[in-house]
């Protein structure tokens, strides 16, 4: 079969073509229908994606807002406190936030306050880390564990790395001045203008030479703020003293313990 014959045969092959019943308007209508359907599907897909993205990113955004609140402009002043301890602190009280989120928010606010307060009373130091968290401390004679806010400030001064510990809790029969002095060698007791008291104590480990000084502020509102300073680095687990004396003196401990920015909710 030659190419010419093939051409002719192909033309003959379509000679019995049935009549064409083609309606362009029907085709266009169908095309429009398909186009609308495709647009609707795309719109639904985009909306679904947007919704999914919103749901997935919302916790992060809210977390960022909480952080922004923490780092926001100064709002609270401790007007009730003694003049020496009055300090502007940033942040707002994150009340009304349930569960772990509330704990985290409170810890962030307190961490921010602690950073401001510490920088004010320890000007020649460099803060390495401030960690604040709420813990449940089992309390003797209590039905439930007592909540306690525990903060750690790691900083560097002229002698090197040091650490301060701040514990904020409600006063209980196990957390009163008498019990405090039973555990710690109390040295002096300073009555404050508002009627509260600050008790200083020292714990000395004769074998290693490690010393921990502590100031406990028993406030009238029932809050106990306890600040510890050491002549060693608890985080490093050093067995021996790393500096001549504790990393904070009594005045600094007093200022921290009586600062009204450090409190519970």
């Amino acid at each position, binding site marked *: 079969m030659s*190419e010419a014959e093939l*051409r002719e045969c192909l033309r003959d*092959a379509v000679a019995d073509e049935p009549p064409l019943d083609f309606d362009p308007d029907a*085709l266009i209508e169908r095309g429009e229908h398909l186009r609308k359907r495709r647009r609707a599907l795309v719109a639904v897909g985009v909306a679904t994606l947007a919704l999914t993205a919103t749901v997935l990113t919302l916790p992060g955004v809210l977390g960022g807002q909480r952080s922004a609140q923490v780092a926001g402009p100064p709002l609270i002043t401790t007007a009730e406190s003694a003049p020496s301890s009055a300090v502007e602190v940033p942040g707002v009280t994150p009340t009304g936030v349930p569960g772990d989120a509330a704990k985290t928010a409170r810890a962030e606010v307190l961490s921010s306050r602690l950073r401001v307060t510490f920088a004010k009373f320890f000007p020649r130091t460099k803060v390495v880390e401030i960690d604040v968290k709420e813990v449940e401390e089992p309390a003797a004679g209590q039905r439930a564990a007592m909540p306690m806010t525990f903060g750690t400030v790691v900083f560097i001064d002229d002698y090197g790395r040091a650490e301060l510990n701040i514990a904020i809790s409600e006063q209980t029969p196990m957390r009163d001045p008498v019990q405090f002095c039973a555990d710690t060698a109390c040295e002096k007791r300073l009555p404050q203008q508002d009627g509260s008291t600050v008790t200083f104590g020292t714990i000395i480990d004769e074998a290693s030479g490690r010393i921990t000084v502590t100031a406990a502020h028993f406030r009238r509102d029932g809050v106990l703020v306890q600040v510890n300073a050491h002549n060693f680095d608890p985080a490093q687990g050093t067995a021996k003293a790393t500096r001549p004396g504790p990393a904070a003196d009594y005045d600094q401990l007093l200022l921290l313990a009586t600062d009204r920015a450090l409190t519970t909710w």
Partner: protein
Amino acid sequence: MREADEQGFRDFAVRQAGVLRRTAYLFCGDWHTAEDLMQASLLKLYQAWHRVHWRENANAYARKVLLRTWLDEKRRPWRRAEQRDGELPDVADASADPELASRQLWARELVRAALLEVPPRQRAVLVLRYFEDLPVNEVALAMGCTEGTVKSQTARGLVALRAAVERLEAGTVVAS
């Protein structure tokens, strides 16, 4: 779509519907399937008309769409036709000259049946080159391959077609 574009597509569709259906028939060997292929191709063309209409050769694009639509359709599981052996039905046209009609019918059925034995892409090349009378470069454009491939597919297609015709003329009738 703007009204002018829509009118342009409508004119194009009316003008090309018959041509596309005939080409589709030679691809698939069935007028109903050819009608479906033509409709589906024009529908796809309508969706893309805003990109196509300004091109110089919308016909070539339409052929390409038709070819792709057919090849896609052929790949679908329910389109995988089995090879069947059997006699072609004797369909006579009573209104025509019996001798002429018989000869035309024989030639038509012979080529149609032989063409359906040629592999799809070679069949497409043969249809585009010898039915549509397209030059090699336009066939290559429609097929999405090089001109060298078109030439080689044409040669192989012609060999396959001649072999099929010889078999059919020898009495072994094969239909799709």
